[in-house]
C-alpha cells in the first residue's frame, strides 16, 4: 500500500458550496479509512463577499498538522482560486470549470497563473450539472465526482456521504446532488481515461476502529455535555458560536438550557451565578467578548466562584479578523483584568484535547473554585479531525466541589486560610452555612477588609491555591529521543501540531531536536520546562502572535534568550517555516 499524504483544497466564492464540498471530501475519506485533518477558511460576511477555502490533509498515517503545500485544487471560482496558486505543490492537480458563464481575461484566469507542471482537469461543471440534474446547484458535487474519478476514490464512499447529508432535505435535493456527483464522475472517466490514477485514494485501513469527524468546537460542546453541563450562557461570536449551536441542539434534550444573553458581561455573570448556586455552567466567546468578561472573571477569582470560559481566539485587537486564527489572547487570559487575579488557563492542541481539557476544566473549576479559561483558537475550533469518539470516564466527569463538613456549622468560614489555599465552599441552601460572593477584599468569613495584612494574606492564599492546581494539570509532553538537544521547540495550542511535524521531519533528517508541548498555560510546570530547557542549546518558541506571549511567560526560565518565531498572518503556522528555523539554529550552533 503506497503512502498517501495528500492535501486537497476546494476554493470558491461564499455561496458556491465550497465548505459543503470540502466537508463531503472529509467524510468520504474518513469513511474510507484515512486520517483526515481539515480546516476551512471563510470570510466574515455571510454570502457573496469573499473567498472560501477548505483544506483537507488526507493520509494513511496519523496527521498532526496541515501541509504547507496543496496537491489538489478544486476551483469553484477561478478568480478566487488564483490566490491559492502560490501554495500549490509541483505537479499539482487542478480541477476547474472549462466553460464558465462568461469569458475570462487572462489577468483573472486561474489557469494563466499556473506553472507548466500543473496537471489540468478542465470540465464544464455548470453544463454537466445542468444536464444531469436540471440545475447548476450541484456543480460542486460535479467537481467532486471528477476528483473522485481521477484520484481513484471509490464513488460509493461519496455517494454514502451525500445520502447521509441530503436525505433529510427530501428526495429531490438528494437526487440532484447524487446525479450531479455521478455525472462528474462519469465525465472524468470518459474524458480523462488515460489520466486516471490507479488506486490512489483507497486505504487499507477501511474497517478499522470506527472514527468520527469532529471539529474542535464540536468536541468542546460534547465534552461540556458529558461533563454534566446544565446551563450555557453566551453571546454569538466567531469562532465560538458553533459551540452554542452544538449545545442548543443537544443540551435541551438532556434537561439543560442554552440561553443567549444580551452580551458577554451578562454571560459570564450568569455563569458565575449558576456556579454560585452549585450548577455547572459554561460560556464561550472570542477575544472581544473575553475582554468584556475580564472584570467579572476577576470577580470569580476574588469571590472564589468556579466558571468555565472558552476563549476561541481569533485575530485581533478589537473585532480584528473574525475568521482568521491567532494565539494572541494568552496575556489576556493569564493576566487580564484588575489586580492580582490568578486563574487556571489551559490550552488544548488538537481536537481530542479540546474534549478532554473541557471535561477537565469543570472539575478544576469546582475543586479550585476559580474561573478556568480554555484557550482554543479559530484553527483549532474549526478544523476537523477524524478520531475515535472521545469519551470521559465517570471519575473524570464526577463533581469535585469541596464542601464543608457538617461539623463546621456555626463556625464555618467561607474563605478560611488553608495549606492548599482551598476553602470548603458552601452552596446556597446548605442550612447553617454562610454564603458569599463578594468582590471586595474580605476576611476569612467574607467580611470586607482592606487592611494591608489581610490583603497580603488573602492574595497569597489565592495564589497558593492556583499554584497547587499544578498537581491536577497535565505536565508538558516531550517529543524527543532524550539527552542533549541542539534545539528544543516549545509550543502551545494549535501551533503545536505544526511544531511536531517540523520536529519529526528534523529528527528524521538526523538533527538533535525535540519538542515540548505545554497545555497547562497557567499555572505552568516550571521545573519540567526548566529541565527540558537545560538540555537544549537553543529554545525556539513559535507562536501565532506578534510578541511571543508564551515566550514572555516562560522565557525567563532559560539561561539565555529564547528564540521567538512569531507570525500574525491569520493562518495556521506552516511546519516548513518552523523546520527552516530549526535547521538554521542547528547550523548556526554548529559553526
Amino acid at each position, binding site marked *: 500500500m503506497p503512502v498517501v499524504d495528500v492535501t486537497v483544497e476546494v476554493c470558491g466564492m461564499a455561496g458556491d458550496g465550497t465548505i459543503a464540498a470540502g466537508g463531503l471530501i472529509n467524510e468520504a475519506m474518513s469513511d474510507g479509512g484515512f486520517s483526515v485533518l481539515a480546516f476551512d477558511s471563510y470570510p466574515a460576511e455571510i454570502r457573496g463577499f469573499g473567498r472560501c477555502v477548505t483544506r483537507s490533509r488526507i493520509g494513511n498515517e496519523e496527521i498532526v498538522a496541515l501541509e504547507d503545500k496543496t496537491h489538489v485544487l478544486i476551483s469553484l471560482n477561478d478568480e478566487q482560486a488564483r490566490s491559492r496558486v502560490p501554495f500549490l505543490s509541483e505537479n499539482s492537480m487542478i480541477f*476547474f*470549470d*472549462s*466553460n*464558465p458563464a*462568461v*469569458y*475570462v*481575461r*487572462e489577468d483573472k*484566469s486561474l*489557469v*494563466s497563473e*499556473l*506553472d*507548466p*507542471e500543473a*496537471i*489540468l482537469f*478542465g470540465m464544464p461543471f455548470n453544463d454537466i450539472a445542468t444536464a444531469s440534474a436540471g440545475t447548476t446547484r450541484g456543480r460542486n458535487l460535479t467537481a467532486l465526482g471528477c476528483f473522485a474519478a481521477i484520484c481513484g476514490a471509490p464513488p460509493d464512499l461519496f455517494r454514502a456521504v451525500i445520502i447521509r447529508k441530503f436525505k433529510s432535505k427530501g428526495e429531490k435535493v438528494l437526487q440532484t446532488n447524487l446525479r450531479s456527483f455521478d455525472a462528474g464522475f462519469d465525465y472524468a472517466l470518459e474524458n480523462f481515461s*488515460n489520466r486516471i490514477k490507479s488506486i490512489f485514494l483507497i486505504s487499507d485501513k477501511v474497517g478499522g476502529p470506527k472514527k468520527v469527524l469532529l471539529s474542535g468546537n464540536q468536541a468542546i460542546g460534547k465534552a461540556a455535555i458529558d461533563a454534566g453541563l446544565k446551563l450555557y450562557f453566551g453571546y454569538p461570536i466567531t469562532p465560538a458560536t458553533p459551540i452554542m449551536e452544538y449545545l442548543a441542539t443537544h443540551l435541551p434534550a438532556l434537561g439543560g438550557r442554552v440561553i443567549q444573553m444580551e452580551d458577554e458581561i451578562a454571560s459570564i455573570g450568569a455563569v458565575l451565578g449558576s456556579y454560585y448556586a452549585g450548577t455547572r455552567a459554561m460560556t464561550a466567546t472570542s477575544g472581544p467578548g473575553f475582554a468584556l468578561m475580564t472584570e467579572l472573571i476577576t470577580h470569580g477569582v476574588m469571590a472564589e466562584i468556579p466558571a468555565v470560559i472558552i476563549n476561541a481566539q481569533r485575530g485581533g485587537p478589537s473585532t480584528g479578523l473574525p475568521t482568521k486564527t491567532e494565539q494572541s489572547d494568552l496575556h489576556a487570559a493569564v493576566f487580564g483584568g484588575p489586580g492580582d487575579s490568578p486563574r487556571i488557563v489551559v490550552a488544548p492542541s488538537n481536537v481530542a484535547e479540546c474534549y478532554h481539557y473541557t471535561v477537565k476544566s469543570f472539575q478544576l473549576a469546582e475543586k479550585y473554585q476559580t474561573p478556568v479559561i480554555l484557550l482554543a483558537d479559530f484553527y483549532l475550533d474549526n478544523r476537523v479531525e477524524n478520531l475515535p469518539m472521545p469519551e470521559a470516564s465517570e471519575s473524570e466527569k464526577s463533581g469535585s466541589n469541596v464542601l464543608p463538613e457538617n461539623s463546621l456549622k456555626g463556625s464555618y468560614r467561607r474563605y478560611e486560610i488553608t495549606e492548599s489555599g482551598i476553602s470548603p465552599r458552601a452552596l446556597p441552601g446548605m442550612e447553617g452555612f454562610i454564603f458569599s460572593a463578594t468582590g471586595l477584599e474580605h476576611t476569612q468569613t467574607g467580611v470586607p477588609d482592606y487592611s494591608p495584612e489581610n490583603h497580603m494574606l488573602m492574595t497569597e492564599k489565592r495564589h497558593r491555591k492556583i499554584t497547587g492546581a499544578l498537581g491536577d494539570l497535565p505536565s508538558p509532553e516531550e517529543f524527543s529521543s532524550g539527552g542533549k538537544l541542539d534545539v528544543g521547540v516549545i509550543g502551545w495550542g494549535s501551533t503545536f501540531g505544526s511544531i511536531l511535524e517540523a520536529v519529526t521531519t528534523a529528527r528524521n533528517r538526523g538533527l538533535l531536536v525535540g519538542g515540548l508541548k505545554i497545555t497547562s498555560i497557567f499555572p505552568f510546570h516550571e521545573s519540567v520546562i526548566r529541565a527540558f530547557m537545560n538540555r537544549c542549546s537553543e529554545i525556539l518558541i513559535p507562536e501565532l502572535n506578534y510578541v511571543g506571549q508564551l515566550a514572555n511567560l516562560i522565557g525567563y526560565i532559560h539561561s539565555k534568550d529564547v528564540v521567538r518565531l512569531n507570525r500574525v498572518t491569520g493562518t495556521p503556522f506552516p511546519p516548513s517555516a518552523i523546520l527552516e528555523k530549526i535547521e538554521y539554529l542547528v547550523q548556526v550552533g554548529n559553526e
Partner: protein
Amino acid sequence: MAQEHCVIIGNGPAANQAALTLRENSSDTRITIVGQEPFPHYRPHLLPEYIAGRLSQDDLCVNPPAFYKECGIKVRLGQRVVHVDFNKRELVLDHKEVISFGGLIIACGGKQRIPEHLQVFDDLMLTLKTPADAAQWIEQLSQVDSVLIVGGDLTSLSLTKALLSLEKRVIFMLNEDSFWPVPLCNELSEKIKHMLTERGVEVIKAGRIKRVTRVSDRSLEVETDNKTLRVGILGAFFGMTPNVKFLARSGLDIERGVLVDEYLQTRFDLVYAAGDCAQVYHPTIKDYWVSIGYQNAINLGKVAGLNLLGGMLSVDASPESIFFIDGIIVNTSWWTEF
C-alpha cells in the same frame, strides 16, 4: 514590439526557438507559449528510442520547466487555442480565457496524417507523435508479439528499428505516399523494402486495408485486398499535416497550412507562422512548401522570432537545407542510414 505581449501558439521546436530568439533579442518582452499537449518541449524524433527503453521520458525533454522561468518565458501546457481574433488581437483558449497579444507566432505544428480510407479504424490504430502516444505503445507492446505498420514515414522506420530491438515481429505495408509531402519514387521505395527485409521485417504488398477487427485484448485481425493478417498492434504512419483547423475562420490565408511569405509573415501585421503548420512561399519556384523535421522547425522558429522584433530575414529555402531532416538528407541518403 519590445513592450508588447508576444504569444506563441505551440510548444514544439519552432515555437521554443521562436520564444528563445525573442528573449535573446528583447529582454523586456513578455513572452507566453501556449501548448496544447501537457508535456514540456520534447524531442519527438527520439520517441522510438524511448519506446525501446533506451531513453527515459526525462531524456526526451529539451529544457526543464525551471529554464523557462529563468528566461522569463511563461509556458502554458495542456491549453488549447480555439480561436484567434486578429482585429482585436486576442486569442481564446478552450476554457474561455481571452489573451491579448501584440505579436503572435503560430507554431502549432502538425498532426498525424491518416488517409481517409483508414480514418474509420482510428480507434484501433496507434500513431506516434507525443509521449502519450509512446506510453500507449509501451503499454501495448508489453502484451503483444507482432506489429503491422502501414505507411512508411521517417517515424515508422525509426520505430521499426526500436521494435526489432524489442524482438517484436514487424510486418510492413509500405505506402508510396507515406512520406508526405515528399513523394517516394519507385527506386527509393524498392531500396527501402530491400533494407527492411534485410533487417528481418516482413514487407508485404497487400493493397488497401478493408477491415480491422479486435479479436482479443492482444490481437487484431486486419483484412486487406488480398490477405488477412492477425497482429498485436496496427500502427499508421503517413507523415504529418498542419494542425490549423482552429484558424479556419480567423481570416488567415490557409491552404494545407498557414500561408506565409518568405519572411514567415502572414497577411496580418506582427503575426507570423513557423514550423510544420506553415506553408512558406518559395520565391524561386513561386509556390509554397511545407517544412518537415526538427531542424527545419528550429530554423523557421528563429526567423519568425527575429522578424517579429523588426527583422527582415528570409528563410533558407535551399533544397540542401529543407531536405536535411533529423540529421539525414531526405531524398538522397536517408534510407541508407537506417
